[in-house]
């Protein structure tokens, strides 16, 4: 990209004239946009960093900084995350739901993606249509419907951990399908066909050729499923059976509406760091698997593909 030098004005122009100057030169650096974008990034991230900072506050205040302390993580004998049973349970419950969700939703979603991409017979259109719906259904509609199905039809499943796991899997499957199917389309059919020409049965072609090629998408979808499960508030809350099945987001929600202590910030920080670690790990594994097929603009294309719902 060539940058055209901006004409140097002799007299100091007004702010308006300078703004016009930026707009006039479409191939130069639009400085207003630079400032605007970085301001947006600061606005979106700094509040969270301040919340993290106050999780290390030595006093009970979340607004006035005193000094650094790990009191709200384990130091405080009553209200720290480690010693307050409701906070500790919430953390365990969140990890339990996210773990079970990854273990079940990822295999189900991978199979569904493979099936939907290769099956063109009767019923495939309807199945595809049903698969897309959970992505655009507001969580409250899904929460109400799952609550009512567990209280009126599948009454063997009471509200509580099992219902929460079933709910989380239900909203996660479609994300796995979208990610894996994107990868399936970008791989194309030629590898499978080559394997078939060399005498491999569909099952062998699948396990020896297609699955290794799908690994990056499987890893990425596992990280995404963990993140959306750990983030979920509505489904967990509607299917919760009270204190012992509250997750971290439910605790944050309840505490924020009452009078929260910095321990709320602490539990939120722990959850955030865990999610970011898992997502980073997923990203590194994904890079490792795709390192041979690197080309410019690949990542941005993948993002574009993932959002191409229609």
């Amino acid at each position, binding site marked *: 990209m060539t940058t055209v030098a901006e004409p140097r004005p002799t007299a100091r122009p007004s702010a308006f004239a300078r703004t016009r100057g930026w707009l006039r030169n*479409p191939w130069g*650096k*639009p400085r207003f*946009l*630079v400032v*605007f*974008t970085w301001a*947006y*990034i600061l606005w*979106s*991230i700094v*509040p*969270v960093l*301040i*919340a993290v900072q106050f999780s290390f506050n030595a006093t009970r205040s*979340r*607004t*006035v900084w005193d000094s650094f302390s790990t009191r709200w993580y384990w130091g405080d004998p009553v209200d720290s995350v480690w010693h307050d049973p409701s906070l500790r349970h919430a953390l365990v419950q969140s990890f339990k739901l996210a773990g079970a969700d990854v273990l079940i939703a990822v295999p189900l*979603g991978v*199979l*569904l993606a*493979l*099936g939907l991409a*290769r099956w063109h*017979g009767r019923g*495939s259109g309807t*199945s595809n249509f*049903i*698969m897309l719906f*959970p992505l*655009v259904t*507001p969580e*409250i*509609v899904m929460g*109400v*419907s799952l*609550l*009512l*199905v567990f209280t*009126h*039809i599948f009454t063997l499943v009471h509200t509580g951990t099992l219902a929460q796991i079933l709910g989380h899997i*239900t909203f996660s499957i479609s994300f796995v*399908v979208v990610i894996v199917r994107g990868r399936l389309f970008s791989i194309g059919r030629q590898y499978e066909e080559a394997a078939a020409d060399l005498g491999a049965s569909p*099952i062998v072609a699948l396990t020896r050729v297609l699955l290794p090629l799908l690994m990056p998408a499987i890893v990425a979808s596992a990280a995404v499923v963990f993140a959306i499960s*750990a983030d979920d508030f*509505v489904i967990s809350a509607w299917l919760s059976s009270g204190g012992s099945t509250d997750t*971290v987001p439910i605790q*944050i929600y309840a505490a*924020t509406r009452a009078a929260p202590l910095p321990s709320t910030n602490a539990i*939120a920080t722990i*959850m*955030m760091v865990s*999610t970011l670690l898992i997502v980073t790990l997923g990203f590194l594994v994904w890079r490792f698997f795709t390192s041979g097929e690197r080309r410019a603009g690949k*990542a*941005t294309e993948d*993002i*574009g593909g993932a*959002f*191409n719902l*229609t």
Partner: protein
Amino acid sequence: MYRRWLWPGFAFPGVLWLVLLFVVPFYAVLGVALGTVDPILFQPVPIWNPLEWNVGWLTEVINRLAPGGIWFDVGIRTVVYVALSLALCLLIGYPVAYYTARHAGRWKGLILILIILPLWISYMMRMLAWVNLLQANGYVNRFLMFTHVLSQPRDWLGGSASTVVFALVYGYIPYLILPLFASLDRIDRSHLEAARDLGASPWSAFRNVTLPLSKTGILGGAVLITLPMFGDYYTPNIVSSSPRTSMIGNQIDLYFHGGPQPTIGAALTIVLAAFLTLLMLYYMRSIHRAQRAVGAVGAL
């Protein structure tokens, strides 16, 4: 023979799961909403046979939402909040996505990561962050008093509509920026150069080339954030918890978790879902049209 059943067999468990836990649950909402209520226990009595459905509760809910009904204000407020938030999200998000796609250069990767970062941070954590900042003696009030914008602390969290809209924008904007970025990033630079060579001013090149070509991203992002915003109840609860800022989602929440009549909550859920389906069909039609228009430009 097994080859014929291989792929449908792969899809079967997932499809069965979604039928049992997505389609059947929706039918459960219909059954409860169109059912009756036990006169003594006030418990909903669902009716599963569509021929016996009772539309009484549904018409009751529609009457409440109609002009003059007790939920009319809530309905209007929900639409106004969502529309305002969408407009603000676009106003803030478009320049950011535009800069990242077009001008970020070697910073593109880093900026992209920083833009995606909030998506991995729990929504509740991000709301908690602002609740801390907006306290009476929080950083926001202290900053505004330090700069003499305010002479005394403002009660941001006591039922202020602007705080709710602000929180909605803060919460949902990352979901809008990504599809916007994806559509802007796909635009071929040569289209713009052609427009400029043919004498278009930068502004008219933006208006006549970039903007129409990014329309699919605008619409896609709008779907992605407006549908969940219409069902949101936790954001207004966290940053205001006042009936003055309550949205449709809050009414549904109240009828299940506070009020005695889940039947009304279920009927309201049906009305909301029907409204959102119409909205989505409208969006899909617009996206389809925009895509066809983009196809025409691409063919040139």
